[in-house]
């Protein structure tokens, strides 16, 4: 089985397992403040790492290319309070232009 299929099926199965477990786990689990704090911070850590790697890495090499300009555009748009789709499309257009002309 290919990497793609393993990733698709494995992640889907675990995602559903977690969702279903949420409805069955005893409620006292939720009162552990440390687990709650860490749980809200995990997405921040992982999303930031994903942004960094998907912008500045090519496999195991650090690179500075058209994607960096795309992300700079996304940051600018977010600061300007642009809606979600505008941010993504703005980043894509900026990156595509940089790819073509720089």
């Amino acid at each position, binding site marked *: 089985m290919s990497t793609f299929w393993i990733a698709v099926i*494995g992640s889907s199965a675990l995602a559903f397992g977690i969702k279903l477990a949420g409805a069955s786990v005893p409620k006292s689990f939720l009162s552990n403040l440390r687990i709650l704090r860490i749980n809200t911070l995990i*997405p921040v850590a992982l999303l930031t790492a994903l942004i960094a790697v998907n912008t500045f890495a090519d496999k195991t090499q650090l690179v500075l290319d058209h994607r960096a300009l795309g992300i700079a555009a996304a940051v600018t748009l977010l600061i300007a309070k642009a809606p979600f789709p505008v941010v993504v499309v703005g980043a*894509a257009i900026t990156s595509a232009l940089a790819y073509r002309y720089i």
Partner: protein
Amino acid sequence: MSVKRDSFSVSITVGAYGSAFGAAAVAADFSVLQACLLSLLLFSGASQFAVVGVIAAGGTAINAIATSTLLGTRNGLYGLRLAPILKLRGWRRVVAAQITIDESIGVALAQKDEAEMRRGFWYTGFGVFIFWNLFTLAGALGAQAIGDPSAWGLDAAVPAAFLGLLWPRLSDRKSWVLAGFAILLALSLTPFVPAGIPIISCTLLAIIIGWRK
């Protein structure tokens, strides 16, 4: 009335974003079928983008699964929060579990009484599910038609999508500090360890920073 309107506007806006996912998945060499299955079965935006992002960065399947699953743990906590209000049994619990995501919980928790909360959960959950999947298919087919992803900026759309998901979570000093360290750790590990490891390593930072109040 207003719960229906809330649910619908959230469903269509968030659902439209599914096109970015479909396009990103195909740009990372997933097939149209695989992109659609992720939206149908995994159905949690950040986790889906993580699967695609880790594979696009050259990570292994195990790495993609681990990163995506860690991002999905919050859905379990949402279920915990809402279970006493939804009061579900049997197959309804299974269906509710699948549509337990940021948006269905967000709309539900914004309602005043329990009956409205239940309506908000179901309307938004189903609404996002339908639109998210339709737009995923559209995005995937679109990306398949256009060829070189870099020429269309799709390789930058992936991190931009993560940024859009991250932005509302940067609500206090602690999360900004964590984000700063995560960038440093992920990038400094990149040349030395297999792709994908730098991302999942940042979980440690969340544990360290979240350990103390």
